[in-house]
């Protein structure tokens, strides 16, 4: 491990020496991000387009492999004074950096560099997820998604239905009918840390139920988890019921097939997953399979609220030179263009983050074309209701990843060890609250911006 690190550092040192004089006339900045695979290539292409579009600045984009690794490397680099100018930070790391003072606020940067940004152009649900409690934008929403329900139209036709379930009551009946029609996996799901997002946070969001007090933590670090007190308890009981009847099946890497793969192969008939998987499923779906997407179901009688945005935002780090900040501002200005939103949404499953970008996509007929049709539902889901109409702004909790782990452990105890639903969720909330209190103590004396 150490040897590898040394090697990597050595390589960077050599690369820096070689590249130093050649690009002396351009201001060069680093941009570290966490996406890997195909998305990493798409980010790289976006960087290349920016570099080709002007001659003053050069942005060097480096994938760090994953959100966690990217954040970890950025923090290590920052502490060593070698930080990149722009860093991608996922939803789970937002609060830590917000409290750190290690950044140049996005709104201030753009104003200082002479750009006027219409921050209200961002979709309200996306804006509020990354904004401070006062509504200021400290970072730029970047790759954004939300959860949707994917359904197999052929299977639903067999049970005489031509639309996806809009309520969980309807979904329960559909699962039952699908099972009776001989399908072995009506609902494919998983309860690992990275895959309870759609069943936990998103469920609570569309029902307008809090995950924690103080507006999910926006109004103070002393928030307490309350997900064990509302509709979620009933939902987990229902989900467990479907699981026990064989209508919901756990599909994961560990069992040999993820639920997304199972859906694309036609083995599972309904899944809940990110709109970011839309392109992937389109490419890998079984030949001739008819499928569609819908917004997440809600319980009957519930007024639908906005779902939460998933993904990450871009932060500008403190301690760089004026010229580097100019370059960063130019880069942000470039990726905000509607044309970029169109390219970005075409090549990835991510959604446009601004109204202007979305309008441009609609005007170009993007959502009418076959592989992209349906993705507009993600926007509809994200903007179902404003915060004034009762939607929560997002989640602003310390140690969010560890809290997700506790929720996941609670669910695993329920589904795998048949432990009592209420007791397990209570324990998960209690353990999560310990994490929150420790976080609060770590940042004692700091106020939430």
């Amino acid at each position, binding site marked *: 491990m*150490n040897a590898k690190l040394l090697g990597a550092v050595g390589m960077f040192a050599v690369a820096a020496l070689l590249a130093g004089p050649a690009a002396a006339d351009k201001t060069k900045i680093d941009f570290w991000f966490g996406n890997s695979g195909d998305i990493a290539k798409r980010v790289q292409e976006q960087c290349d387009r920016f570099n080709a579009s002007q001659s003053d600045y050069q942005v060097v984009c480096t994938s760090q492999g994953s959100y*966690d690794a990217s*954040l*970890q490397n950025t*923090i290590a680099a*920052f*502490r060593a004074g070698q930080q990149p100018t722009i860093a991608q930070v996922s939803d789970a*790391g937002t609060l*830590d*950096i917000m*409290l*750190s*003072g*290690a950044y140049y606020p996005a709104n201030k940067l753009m104003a200082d560099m002479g750009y006027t940004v219409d921050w209200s152009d961002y979709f309200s649900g996306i804006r509020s997820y990354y904004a401070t409690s006062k509504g200021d934008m400290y970072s730029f929403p970047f790759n954004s998604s939300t959860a949707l329900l994917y359904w197999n139209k052929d299977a639903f036709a067999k049970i005489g239905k031509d639309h996806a379930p809009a309520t969980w009551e309807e979904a329960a009946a559909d699962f039952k009918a699908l099972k009776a029609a001989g399908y072995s996996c009506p609902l494919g799901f998983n309860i*690992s*840390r990275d895959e309870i997002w759609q069943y936990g946070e998103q469920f609570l969001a569309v029902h307008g139920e809090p995950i924690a007090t103080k507006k999910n933590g926006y109004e103070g670090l002393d928030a307490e988890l309350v997900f064990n007190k509302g509709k979620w308890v009933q939902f987990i009981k229902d989900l467990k019921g479907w699981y026990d009847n064989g209508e919901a099946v*756990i599909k*994961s*890497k*560990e*069992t*040999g*097939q993820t639920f997304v793969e199972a859906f694309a192969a036609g083995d599972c008939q309904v899944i809940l997953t990110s709109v970011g998987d839309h392109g992937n499923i389109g490419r890998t779906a079984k030949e001739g399979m008819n499928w569609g997407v819908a917004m997440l179901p809600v319980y009957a009688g519930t007024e639908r609220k906005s779902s939460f945005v998933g993904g990450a935002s871009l932060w500008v780090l403190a301690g760089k030179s004026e010229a580097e900040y100019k370059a960063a501002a130019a880069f942000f200005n470039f990726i905000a263009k509607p044309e970029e939103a169109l390219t970005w949404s075409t090549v990835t499953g991510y959604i446009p983050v601004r109204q202007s970008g979305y309008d441009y996509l609609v005007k170009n007929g993007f959502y009418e074309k076959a592989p992209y049709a349906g993705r507009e539902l993600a926007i509809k889901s994200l903007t179902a209701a404003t915060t004034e109409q009762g939607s929560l702004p997002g989640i602003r909790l310390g*140690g969010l*990843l*560890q809290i997700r*782990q506790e929720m*996941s*452990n609670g669910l*695993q*105890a329920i589904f*795998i*060890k048949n432990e009592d639903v209420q007791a397990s969720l209570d324990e998960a909330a209690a*353990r999560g609250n*310990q*994490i929150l209190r*420790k976080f609060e*103590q*770590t*940042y*004692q004396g*700091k106020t939430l911006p």
Partner: protein
Amino acid sequence: MEKRATFSSTTIGILFALPMLVLIFVFFYWPSGQALFWAFTLEQPWGGGNRWVGFQNFQQLLSDPVYWNSISRSMIFGLGSTAIAMGMALILALFTDRELRGHGAYRSIFVWPYAIAAPALGLAFRFILAPEAGLLSLINQVWPGIWNPALDGNDAMIAVIIAFSWKYIGYNFIFFLSALQSIPRSLIEAAAMDGSGPARRMWDIQLPLLTPTLFFLLVINITESFQDSFGIVDIMTQGGPARATELMVYKIYFDGFKGLDYSGAAAQSIILMVLVILLTFVQFRFIERRVHYK
């Protein structure tokens, strides 16, 4: 009078030792000191400052039954994987040493697993041991539901133990084989002439002469099983299902590197360090007595 070439000045001696001392300080004592300091504070990940909290981090951990469970799981993992890795390696080495057909090839092939990085190994075993699609899914077709590491905690523990032992079999094998080959042939031949069969010779001659190697590998294997297992756990089970494979070192990795709880992770690594030191001490105190070095 006997003539000796010695350095008159200690300064020169220290100068020669200095590069190594600096390396050890930079890569071992400095980080350990940092971890020790963080364990008594609450450290903000971006470096905004830290607060001294005394033993609070330790208190929270040691009063948490879930943490105690992860300690006992680590023990089970350590003992299980050490037993398998050493037992299998010893058997393989004994057979290779008997110069069975193809022993030359085995000698190099058995070492390869150790050269494979833990994540790659984890991926391979995740596929092999997957209950629905993997190679082992065959036994589920014969006895449905008998093997499911995705949903059964015991199966998951067995899976990570197998993957980890598989890697260390190669490592142990080299040591056993070289130790076996340094046993004077005359001893074995003399025993053979006295009429003892291969099994008798292994038990009465080779094994007693192997005890220094056995002891060395025992200490190394136990230590490594406590420290080197997080990569395999992360890829294969992420500590699940329902914490069944949440080993101490995986929790350190998760809390520190993913959860950004530097102080909690530091306190856990101090506890782990103390535990490994204790275990090593116990081994030297009680097992080394039975080792014959000559």
